[in-house]
């Protein structure tokens, strides 16, 4: 018995990295007043002088942003445009349309968006995802009546967005300089190029004849823009910080990395 214990102890010492050195499993110390003292469950660094928060945050602030001054102005322009034009229009839109109609509109445009999703999945040689997106397109365009309904999601084929920026990133193209696009918001050089490619591809494919029709009917573009804003939950000022620009920049950069890696 003792031998085994010794062996176990030796093993645990050897694998410091694997050993559970946290205090998570220590018994809860109940105070006289019933207080559970959650901080006693944590292992603190002995001197309480670690600068990891500062190190992480300062490193995170290193985003390549040579156009910062310009970008900030565009950011403020977007903020104002959003508050004074975009959101009031979206609010009007939600006011005059019933909920099922808005969902239908969103589904319709999302179905159109599945075409570039499919193309980019194919370009990234993601077989499984391409099949799923093809399934979505077939199902939603037929059973879902030109995409107004989204039976595919209900059947376990969730929407998986892929754009050309992600495809470029997949093949190792770096993001390049951070750019804030007017109206569109945060982007970078690579993703801006991707946006153009996706747009061109979409108008060339002319799926469901929408691109052709909307060249004569700009109101379709307007509806698409309003729907896009309606579907985007981000609100300026939401981060409630004088440093919102920096935070958005970091989150955009990291979330793009995450989308590319995934």
């Amino acid at each position: 018995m003792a031998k085994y214990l010794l062996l176990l102890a030796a093993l645990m010492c050897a694998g410091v990295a694997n050993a559970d050195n946290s205090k998570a499993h220590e018994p809860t110390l109940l105070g006289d007043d019933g207080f559970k003292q959650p901080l006693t469950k944590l292992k603190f660094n002995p001197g309480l002088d670690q600068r990891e928060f500062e190190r992480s945050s300062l490193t995170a602030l290193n985003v390549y942003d040579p156009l910062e001054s310009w970008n900030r102005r565009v950011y403020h322009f977007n903020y104002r445009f959003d508050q004074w034009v975009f959101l009031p229009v979206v609010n009007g839109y939600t006011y005059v349309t019933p909920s099922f109609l808005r969902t239908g509109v969103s589904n319709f445009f999302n179905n159109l968006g599945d075409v570039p999703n499919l193309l980019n999945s194919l370009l990234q040689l993601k077989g499984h995802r391409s099949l799923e997106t093809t399934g979505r397109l077939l199902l939603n365009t037929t059973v879902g009546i030109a995409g107004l309904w989204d039976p595919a999601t209900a059947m376990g084929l969730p929407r998986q967005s892929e754009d050309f920026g992600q495809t470029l990133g997949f093949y190792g193209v770096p993001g390049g300089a951070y750019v804030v696009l007017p109206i569109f918001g945060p982007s970078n050089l690579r993703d801006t190029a991707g946006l153009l490619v996706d747009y061109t591809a979409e108008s060339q494919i002319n799926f469901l004849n929408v691109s052709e029709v909307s060249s004569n009917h700009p109101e379709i573009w307007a509806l698409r823009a309003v729907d896009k804003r309606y579907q985007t939950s981000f609100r300026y000022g939401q981060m409630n910080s004088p440093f919102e620009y920096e935070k958005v920049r970091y989150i955009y950069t990291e979330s793009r990395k995450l989308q590319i890696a995934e």
Partner: protein
Amino acid sequence: MLRSLRCAALLGSLFLSASALAVDIDQASYGYPLTNPFEATIATTPPDLRPKLPTDDEINQSDYTLNMRPEREFSLPDNFWAVKKLTYRIAKQDRAAPLIFLIAGTGARYDSSLNEYLKKLYYQAGYHVVQLSSPTSFDFIASASRFATPGISQEDAEDMYRVMQAVRAQNASLPVTDFYLTGYSLGALDAAFVSKLDETRRSFNFKKVLLLNPPVNLYTSITNLDKLVQTEVKGINNTTTFYELVLNKLTRYFQQKGYIDLNDALLYDFQQSKQHLTNEQMAMLIGTSFRFSAADIAFTSDLINRRGLIIPPKYPITEGTSLTPFLKRALQCDFDCYLTEQVIPMWRARSDGGSLLQLVDQVSLYALKDYLHASPKIAVMHNADDVILGPGDLGFLRKTFGDRLTVYPLGGHCGNLNYRVNADAMLEFFRG
């Protein structure tokens, strides 16, 4: 079993002297699934255990602005144009109804997720709901705070009271039967001070006031929060910072899942997965979020008061000016630094000196002990494993509030507010 008996006996003997005992919810019958306080704080309640709430579409609500400090129009730099006026949100019933004010927690705006949740809960129960930013929130400091140095609870409450009066004036035609008040976290402390102020000013005559997870000793709370970024986190090394560590875990989680799906259950699912965070990592994450709040407060307060600690007083700022160097400086300042560098000097200058202990006494719940003890309209809900409390704080609440205190065994900091059982209790308190 023996252990709990012993505890019960101990508790019983301890508080027999008090007139009434606090309501202690038994862990077994409570049914809250998250036993880890840090997990509860971050992930909150799993979606199927939350109450059924109306969607935003079903609520008649809009945002209004108040011009509380007109001089800030000129004293604040241009790129703060969005916070020169204070925004709040009001949800109106279509008939005469009681009105409830919600005060957000540390650094949080009127539309913080907890405030939105509380709005839906109370709106559904038939209240008009007014959502207010915390006095420590960036927009509130910039647009409604007289001294722009939040932390002195009494002064914060005065600022808040003016805002509430302005809200009432702006919606004068709204038929209101009674006024109620609630707040969570630091907002609960503010609510207590606002309620005290209302006893003399009498604008609202609050019928009932509910404090959700308030700090008891403000200094203990900020010390605890500052300390959270000092945990020893495994996996951090010269090439991997803490954020990268968390993001890598998140990436692997999504890769295993097969697609990105951002929803209410994300954090809960994530913690159930192989990539889950350890206690230390979660503590670091909570601490990080509070450090960013501290940085925002320290910067905004310094900027408005032109103290020159973070940003030079006459530094020209336009919409194109990079604030990153100042963020870098502000990030070095935690709550303790903000307190010693900005709050205490201002407080000393305004109150003929005084020690840190006196300040702590003045800004914590201690200052209101007699009032809280004698006011049957005020109640508290707290958790036994809340990270913002220190030893003895629950004892203070037990003594002060008696049976108006409810102690939940689990939930961390505000993690169980959106649990069905808590939601029912929160509605029941105002109903009764």
